[in-house]
């Protein structure tokens, strides 16, 4: 069953498309790597999936899930790290969907939070302010929050940027654990070896889908070269895009 369905989706900024006429679907429980050069539209696609960006055209359907029910780990989290809040309290915001604005956080919930913090290896850091964490610890903390969100669909935007191998390995285990629970996981990545080793499905994006399918078939030299070439067009004076009959049928 399709968990995410893109129907001729165009996403962009100021009418300029960053993702152009994307159609396709992500099966429930899929573990999909989204790869492509910088500026290929990976982050834009993710912002579209979680409802932060409205499509300029086309639709994104999530099989009955609201965008708010999708867990999202942004690339440059615009987190105010100077804000005086403890790791425990920060991670607890992952429970938002169940406790909302007024719900209390009882013993069971505190247990869950402690478990999530333990699962990412941050036990002992609960009382620390978030400003005292290193980059890797920060990313672990954000993963703990995603864990608590308990979402059917999880979208991770370049989760391993600037992470050392220990942190990457630990967090990758978490992702595989989610995959084992039949959650649908999408991750934007740059490390091709990691994609080959751990991600069965791959979408190669360069504003348009260059290739989409089993990782071994997508990651060919020809495809990667094509992606690099396609990515470099941003024309300030571009004419409005008129849908060709072929893309309508897709």
């Amino acid at each position, binding site marked *: 069953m399709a968990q995410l369905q893109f129907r001729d989706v165009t996403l962009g900024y100021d009418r300029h498309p960053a993702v152009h006429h994307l159609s396709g679907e992500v099966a429930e429980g899929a573990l999909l790597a989204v790869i492509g050069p910088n500026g290929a539209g990976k982050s834009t696609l993710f912002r579209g999936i979680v409802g932060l960006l409205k499509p300029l055209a086309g639709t994104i359907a999530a099989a009955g899930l609201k965008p708010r029910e999708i867990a999202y780990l942004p690339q440059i989290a615009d987190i105010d790290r100077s804000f005086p809040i403890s790791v425990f309290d920060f991670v607890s*915001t992952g429970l938002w969907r169940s406790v909302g604005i007024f719900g209390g956080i009882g013993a069971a919930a505190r247990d869950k939070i402690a478990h999530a913090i333990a699962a990412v290896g941050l036990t002992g850091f609960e009382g620390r302010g*978030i400003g005292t964490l290193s980059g890797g610890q920060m990313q672990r903390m954000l993963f703990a929050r995603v864990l608590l969100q308990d979402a059917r669909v999880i979208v991770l935007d370049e989760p391993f940027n600037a992470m050392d191998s220990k942190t990457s390995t630990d967090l990758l285990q978490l992702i595989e654990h989610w995959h084992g629970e039949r959650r649908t996981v999408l991750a934007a990545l740059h490390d091709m070896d990691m994609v080959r080793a751990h991600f069965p499905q791959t979408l190669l994006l360069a504003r348009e889908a260059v290739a989409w399918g089993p990782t071994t078939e997508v990651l060919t030299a020809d495809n990667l070269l094509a992606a690099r070439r396609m990515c470099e067009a941003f024309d300030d004076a571009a004419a409005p895009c008129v849908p060709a009959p072929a893309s309508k049928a897709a």
Partner: protein
Amino acid sequence: MLREVLIAPFSDFEFMRRALAAVIALSLGSGPIGVFLMLRRMSLVGDAMAHAILPGAAIGFLLSGLNLFAMTTGGLIAGFAVALLSGLVSRSTGLKEDASLATFYLASLAIGVTIVSVKGTNVDLLHVLFGNILAMDDPTLLMVASNATITLVVLAVIYRPLVVESVDPLFLRTVSRAGAPAHLIFLGLIVVNLVNGFQALGTLLAVGLMILPAGIARFWSRDVTPMICIAVASAIVSGYVGLVLSFQTRIPSGPAIILVASLLYLASVLFGRVGGVLPQLFPGRHLEA
């Protein structure tokens, strides 16, 4: 002797008791608002907003003289209008909040002072600019108290979205729609408390009981909740000591209160446990892990 200085002013004079009640009510509302202003890097926004209130208060003064109720209503209307407009402008255009407010700041102060000086005397002007906490009548006192109550209740309601929006606005947007309303309500609370402070401390100092206690609290705690408690406590202490000071000397009450708060702030900068100057100069031996 000590009793004479510290307690007698309040047991002997009703206006001092009223002033004390007013300043305590004021502190309860302004403390937490100030902490959030500071944490959201909006301290100067509060200052600008305080000036935006002035024309409204001045029109109230124009219509019904030095009537605190009319001036408060005018101030509330003007403040809400400005807060709402600038909030909407910055949310929908991406113009920074401080920039969209800065334009109002000087114009409003000029308009307000002009209106007051055309109609009233220099004494009236002083009253508007620096307030008069020693002239609290019943309705005013009630209004100050109920504004503080409203502030605390509303803040309790929007506390969670407000905190999350301050730390990680993008996350809040992906899980909830509460961010924007919480922000606008918070702007409203700033206005309510500025108008409150306006009665006691005047338009120039109203923001003082918000920002200074928040600044003090920042040097003593690393967590929001204790920060708020420290801010409220230091605001109350400043209010009390300031009133005593102004009673025993000839310093006007408003400036006296803010002066005491400033001294507390200075002491916090020097000795504060979290990032104070002296603890940084003499941090003690470093730890093993």
